[in-house]
């Protein structure tokens, strides 16, 4: 054991037996004393004399005892306590400085912790399952996907084939399973409710290896059409058990009505089990084989090889590596593909060099990971920038402040304090600032990250939920950055402040001839770096914000303001065909009579909601052209405020018997009929002949960033599908809240069987469709604002400290005839140089750094001169303002008073 550790442990243990140790010390000394006395007596001295001589020889026993106690004390610990209380007093004394220092750090650390908890929740946290390192994520490589060529969506037959291959021992897995997060309609006390749920295949639970809290989990016996012999089974979460059954133990065997079918609750999963998708957290789990029952009539399982919807994961046998799994999957891919009976499908898949891949699945898989990984990394980089900025700023301020304390420190050095001790004390000060900053940052981080997560996932609505709570990893991260910060911030100033000798200090003192140049390089470099960093942040923010503003300005081709959507889910009610259309008509008329409603229509795919549908129609030359398709109700274009360039809207009279009608947007019209007016033309599609009845303005379909695609609209009244679920689009004047209540009561009256429609605003849909861009823009603008503020404070603080030290010099200059303007110039120049150098460096750095943003920018060059110019201007303005104040103050110095101070 190293001596230091032995020492520490023994001292530590002594703390717990202080009294006994004390007694032993006394006894030991007493023994020595006695032995001395005995020796004297043996040498023939009379007892009383022996006592006196022994006492004199031994010296002051109480003093020796005290010395022994000191040996056992924690010297450094007690020094530490003294330093802490001293630093606390100092920090209290200069409250303004402390507040600025703590709040800048809180800003930096809070921002970092917030983003890190998001990254942690989405990208880092392992799945709540034993041996999660054995979990493997299965992907597909396809040549046609380009780039890395990987995708993670699978069809159900692939999964079944893989299950069979695993069963025959050809794959190094103990379990292989698929899952899909969705919403189930569950009958509650007040009609159907939508509950976050997941379809899981038979080996899902045995693969996750989490024991149920109650009952049993789903097994392969449940994952067969119609369920096991005991019927359809469902597993519920502990949270759902709490909310719906009040933790009643007899929940097992209870029937739940899901999608109008009775399911038996067979088990309850514990709270810590969140499933394999970090952004899902399902409340209900049903077997994959039950999907056709629950999702009828839109079953993905029944769509067979053409529905790419499942995520597949597997648990590797212990000892099997990812490389082995990868090789086994790659070798068996063609076997899986050939299980299909569709020759065309097999040929396409083989031509595309389809290959299954394995990668670590210890962190589960979420679709949002693919979507937000890059934006989160960029935002995190900005956060690190902000933290660095806060550190630089604090270092500069501490350094400026400690020059004011140089005299005190030099005196203490001269009086015998060691340099190490002084540095320790100065570091404690910065550690205390860092600890306070971290505490403040940690206080706000959970609230902020929850808000951000909600903003990011709002497009997924009820289906997604991300746990961003502070776990040990986030706390460790915060502690780590706090420590690094404290050392970064405190060390340089502490080293520099303790480097002077008293003689120099006394010589320099307050005198005017102070050597300014000697020490001023480091602070200048620090401040210039700060300016450079701030400029980079401002440029990035400017680019992102400009891009989002341009996105909004370009607009979607319709007017989203005052437009609300009500989605009607008709899949689980009895009406269909014409009678269902009559219900829609009734609902439409009912809505139209609500106060504030200007017009109403129906649409199958709400623009920019993320879904799309395409058809291929022949153009005039008989060539097939791919056109985006949508199904709409009467007066759709009036409601959306999409201009009708020619022709008419659909009406309720456009029934199936009246001949198929179609409306094209401008792009589709020129695509299909480049040489003639499309109105009245026929388009043949299958056995149908569509007649073009109108040409309308272009509107964005599923991506605000892309140009409007060619789009063809067909009426819902001629939909070949008899049980369509459409969304009502409503043009409102006035607030949406009273309308929402009215619409809900209207629906329960007209269609009691369907779930209460969810009301969304079109502006919300639009914002959700650019959620990551919006998040990046909002955050970066906020960061840029903070960066400007922090830099301003830094420039102001360091200059005013420096100027305060030059009071007498300036006084003499003024006494010798310097004009006020000259004094202002003198002080101002100091910062002007820093700001200039920093800005120049910042422009160059930003020029290169902004490249990473390129893929997030819409209609904005990464070198947009306007943004660059405006950023430099903003920074220069702030720098000028921050420098002018100390300069003006310097110009007000009274020469007489200043010189008399000497």
């Amino acid at each position, binding site marked *: 054991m190293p001596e230091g550790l032995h020492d520490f442990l023994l001292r530590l243990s002594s703390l717990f037996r202080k009294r006994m140790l004390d007694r032993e010390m006394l006894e030991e000394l007493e*023994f020595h004393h006695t032995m001395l006395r005995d020796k004297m007596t043996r040498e023939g001295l009379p007892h009383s004399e022996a006592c006196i001589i022994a006492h004199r020889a031994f010296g002051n026993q109480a003093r020796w005892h005290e010395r022994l106690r000191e040996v056992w004390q924690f010297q450094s610990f007690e020094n530490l306590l003294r330093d802490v209380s001293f630093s606390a007093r100092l920090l209290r004394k200069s409250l303004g400085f402390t507040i600025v220092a703590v709040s800048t750090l809180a800003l930096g650390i809070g921002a970092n912790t917030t983003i890190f908890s998001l990254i942690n929740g989405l990208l880092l946290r392992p799945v709540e399952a034993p041996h999660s390192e054995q979990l493997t994520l299965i992907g597909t490589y396809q040549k046609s996907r380009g780039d890395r060529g990987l995708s993670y969506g699978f069809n159900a037959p692939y999964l079944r084939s893989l299950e069979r291959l695993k069963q025959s021992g050809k794959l190094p897995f103990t379990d292989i399973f698929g899952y899909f997060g969705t919403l189930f309609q569950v009958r509650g006390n007040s009609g159907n409710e939508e509950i976050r749920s997941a379809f899981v295949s038979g080996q899902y639970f045995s693969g996750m290896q989490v024991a149920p809290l109650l009952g049993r989990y789903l097994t392969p016996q449940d994952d067969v059409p119609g369920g096991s012999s005991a019927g359809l089974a469902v597993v519920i979460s502990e949270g759902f058990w709490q909310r719906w059954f009040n933790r009643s133990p007899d929940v097992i065997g209870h029937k739940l009505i899901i999608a109008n079918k009775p399911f038996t609750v067979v088990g309850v999963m514990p709270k810590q089990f969140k499933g394999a998708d970090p952004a899902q957290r399902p409340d209900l789990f049903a077997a994959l084989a039950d999907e056709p029952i629950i999702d009828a009539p839109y079953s993905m399982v029944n769509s067979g090889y053409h529905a790419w919807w499942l995520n597949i994961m597997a648990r590797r046998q212990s000892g099997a590596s990812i490389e082995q799994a990868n090789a086994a999957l790659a070798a068996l891919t063609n076997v899986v593909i050939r299980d299909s009976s569709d020759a065309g499908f097999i040929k396409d898949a083989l031509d595309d060099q389809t290959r299954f891949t394995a990668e670590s699945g210890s962190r589960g898989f979420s679709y949002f990971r693919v979507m937000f990984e890059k934006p989160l990394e960029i935002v995190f980089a900005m956060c690190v920038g902000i933290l660095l900025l806060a550190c630089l700023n604090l270092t500069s301020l501490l350094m400026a402040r400690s020059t004011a304390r140089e005299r005190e420190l030099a005196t203490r050095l001269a009086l015998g304090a060691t340099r190490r001790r002084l540095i320790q004390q100065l570091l404690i000060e910065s550690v205390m600032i860092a600890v306070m900053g971290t505490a403040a940052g940690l206080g706000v981080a959970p609230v902020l990250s929850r808000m951000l997560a909600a903003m990011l996932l709002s497009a997924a609505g009820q289906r997604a939920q991300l746990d961003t709570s502070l776990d040990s990893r986030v706390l460790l991260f915060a502690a780590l950055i706090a420590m690094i910060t404290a050392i970064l911030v405190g060390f340089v100033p502490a080293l520099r402040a303790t480097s002077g000798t008293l003689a120099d200090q006394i010589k320099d003192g307050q005198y005017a001839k102070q050597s300014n140049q000697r020490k001023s390089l480091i602070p200048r470099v620090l401040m210039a770096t700060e300016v450079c960093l701030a400029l980079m942040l401002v440029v990035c923010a400017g680019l992102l914000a400009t891009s989002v503003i341009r996105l909004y300005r370009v607009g979607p081709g319709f007017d989203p303001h005052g437009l609300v959507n009500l989605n009607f889910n008709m899949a689980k009610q009895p009406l269909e065909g014409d009678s269902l259309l009559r219900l829609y008509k009734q609902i439409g008329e009912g809505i139209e009579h609500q106060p504030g409603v200007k017009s109403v229509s129906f649409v199958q795919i709400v623009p920019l909601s993320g879904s799309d549908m395409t058809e291929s129609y022949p153009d005039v030359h008989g060539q097939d052209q791919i056109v985006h398709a949508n199904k709409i109700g009467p007066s759709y274009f009036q409601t959306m405020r999409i201009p009708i360039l020619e022709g008419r809207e659909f009406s309720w009279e456009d029934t199936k018997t009246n001949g198929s009608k179609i409306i094209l947007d401008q792009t589709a019209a020129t695509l299909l009929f480049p040489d003639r007016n499309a109105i009245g033309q026929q388009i043949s599609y299958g056995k149908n002949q569509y007649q073009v009845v109108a040409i309308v303005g272009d509107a964005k379909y599923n991506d605000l960033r892309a140009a409007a695609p060619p789009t063809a609209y067909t009426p819902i009244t001629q939909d070949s599908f008899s049980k369509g679920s459409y969304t009502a689009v409503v043009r409102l004047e006035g607030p949406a809240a009273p309308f929402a209540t009215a619409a809900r009561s209207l629906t329960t009256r007209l269609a009691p069987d369907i779930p209460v429609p969810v009301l969304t605003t079109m502006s919300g849909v639009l914002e959700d469709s650019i959620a990551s861009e919006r998040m990046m823009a909002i955050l970066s603008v906020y960061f840029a604002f903070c960066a400007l503020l922090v830099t301003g404070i830094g420039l102001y603080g360091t200059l005013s400290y420096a100027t305060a030290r030059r009071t007498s010099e300036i006084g003499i200059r003024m006494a010798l005839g310097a004009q006020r303007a000259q004094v202002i110039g003198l002080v101002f120049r100091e910062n002007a140089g820093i700001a200039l150098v920093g800005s120049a460096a910042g422009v160059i750095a930003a020029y290169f750094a902004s490249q990473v943003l390129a893929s997030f920018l819409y209609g904005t060059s990464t070198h947009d001169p306007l943004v660059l110019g405006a950023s430099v201007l903003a920074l220069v303005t702030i720098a000028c303002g921050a420098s002018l104040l100390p300069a003006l103050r310097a110009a007000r110095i009274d020469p007489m008073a200043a010189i008399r101070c000497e």
Partner: protein
Amino acid sequence: MVREKEVDPGELIQGTLEMLILKALVRGPAHGYAIAEWIHLTSHQVLKVEEGALYPALHRLQLRGILSATWGASTNNRRAKFYQLTALGQKRLNAESQRWARLSAAVAFVMQAS
């Protein structure tokens, strides 16, 4: 910072005292008084170990794991604290005595130079 101090010829600077304590314990466990006596006698009564220096040194060595301590009975049947070399202490003593031999030889060379 090293502060100069008046040095009594019989007083030992700390490093040397520690070495002597270790040496005294080579023959087996001993209590503080016996150590002081042994050093005093073996040095032909030249070196006198101050109690105020001896016990802090002993305790420091114990804290660093160079000595271990147990309570036992002394020859006259009194309870006393006996110190003993640990393995680490043995190693330290070897290193120290080599260092000392080199040092004293070097000093001797210098002093014998004519």
